């Protein structure tokens, strides 16, 4: 039996009489690349905030890395990594300082930080940039560094919120290489994206519409079940009936 690292049962978040997340249930397995898709305003961000231990659900159950989303938020935060297109690293700290800062925040030992840092810098080929401000790096490098920093403390799960927006295709593919590598090493990857072709990189995909999960399967099965030639078509069939949009 595969190990479950995220378990969600009827998870619900209500704001007044508005159901941002409406009874969603799903499991994510260890080492899986799980795509979490939905139109703008479908409730993805709200659900993700709960799973990251940043917001309490109204009802339902969920656990992340074995910790309860109601009672063990702090333990959840220690066992996950997070990266988004908008917030990743401090632009006016150097590459080295960012690694040190985030390593420290996540409680990695000082001696361990300097060992892993040397290794990371070498793997990314950033030897010459180590004392440069992150703000001076090209976007693609920033994103690769941000991902490496997000898994620097070797979390059980890493949450990626639209990690590849705007990056060039070559970098995007290198980025996915890094994701696969992390997953092969046992880190579960939970990712949102607007690129439907990118959704096909995931082992399984869920699609949220108006607060509910309307479909959850492998990309191959989803295409088969919706008689679609691409994920774009599957998404369109499901999401075009959506009543909600973002603010």
């Amino acid at each position: 039996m595969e190990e479950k690292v995220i378990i969600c049962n009827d998870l619900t978040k209500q704001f007044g009489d508005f159901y941002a997340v409406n009874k969603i249930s799903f499991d994510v397995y260890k080492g899986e690349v799980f795509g979490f898709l939905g139109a703008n305003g479908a409730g993805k961000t709200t659900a993700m905030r709960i799973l990251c231990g940043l917001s309490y659900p109204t009802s339902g159950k969920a656990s992340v890395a074995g910790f309860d989303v109601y009672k063990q938020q702090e333990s959840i935060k220690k066992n996950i990594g997070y990266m988004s297109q908008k917030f990743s690293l401090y632009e006016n700290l150097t590459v080295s300082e960012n690694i040190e800062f985030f390593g420290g925040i996540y409680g990695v030992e000082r001696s361990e930080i300097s060992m892993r840092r040397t290794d990371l810098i070498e793997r990314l080929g950033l030897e010459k940039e180590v004392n440069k401000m992150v703000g001076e790096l090209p976007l693609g490098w920033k994103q690769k560094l941000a991902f490496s920093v997000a898994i620097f403390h070797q979390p059980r799960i890493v949450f990626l919120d639209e990690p590849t927006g705007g990056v060039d295709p070559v970098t995007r593919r290198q980025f996915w290489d890094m994701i696969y590598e992390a997953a092969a090493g046992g880190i579960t990857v939970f990712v949102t994206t607007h690129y439907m072709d990118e959704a096909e990189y995931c082992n399984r995909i869920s699609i949220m519409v108006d607060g509910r999960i309307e479909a959850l399967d492998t990309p191959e099965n989803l295409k088969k079940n919706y008689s679609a030639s691409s994920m774009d078509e599957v998404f369109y069939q499901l999401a075009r009936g959506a009543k909600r949009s973002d603010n």
Partner: protein
Amino acid sequence: MDAVSLKNIHKTYDKGNVIAVDDVSFDVKKGELFGLIGPDGAGKTSIFRILTTVLLADKGSASVAGFDVVKEYRAIRNRVGYMPGKFSLYQDLTIKENLEFFATVFDTSIEENYDLIKNIYDQISPFNDRRAGKLSGGMKQKLALCCALIHKPEVLLLDEPTTGVDAVSRKEFWDMLKDLKQQGITILVSTPYMDEANLCERIALIQNGKILSVETPENIVKAFPVTLYAAKSDNNYKLLTDFRNFDAVASAYASGEYMRIIVKDEHPDSITLLKDYAEKFGNRNVEIKIIAPTIEDNFIWLSQKEANH
């Protein structure tokens, strides 16, 4: 006469240290739907700002609707509709107020060119009294397009109108552009989404300020010089790693359900060769086939060729 024409345009920032636009030339024909496709930092926005006469190029010349961007900038400003990448309408004005404001600035009225915006405006007019700042992303985008069209421009310049917008709104937006094209408006649109390239009549691929290619989407795909193989197995990451260690493989990269493989020497039995190799290394349920390249595959090919130049 071309609706938009750029000749050897150069633009640098930071006293010449940052090259944003590097000797760019292309033409957009009258009535054409033309896409400028490239990642962030490729130089797309600088090009738009030069064409809308709000930024001066260092070198080169450009014209829009037949007028020179430097000498005849006033004539251009009355003839183009511009939607910048960043939402730039007045957040504190309502939908209707924004539209009226832009109509007045161009010395026209909502009624005068109503036909042009009707299909788009109908979708947002039920919220006429809502402030622009309170609209959803999709609605903001529609309002911005209405405002860019209100003076019936000859040329529409749209800088990344679909970035960050979900797949459904993106599809609707492209449908609107097709309608506008039918009405004779020339459209130059930029996007970082390679899949949107297929919706344009012609595209320019751009990276690091340089144009990689200007062609129809079909011809760009046709110009792909080698056979592209697609492969998958029970464990794609292992398969990818194994192929990268294979002498006969020139490059292997992840690409959704099927990874892409390019071999060093074309061979009629390449599929068998790849499959045998993969199975020898313990990969299960290996599937290998020839696949048609996409715009993205071409973009990668061209940008790597440019880098090795």
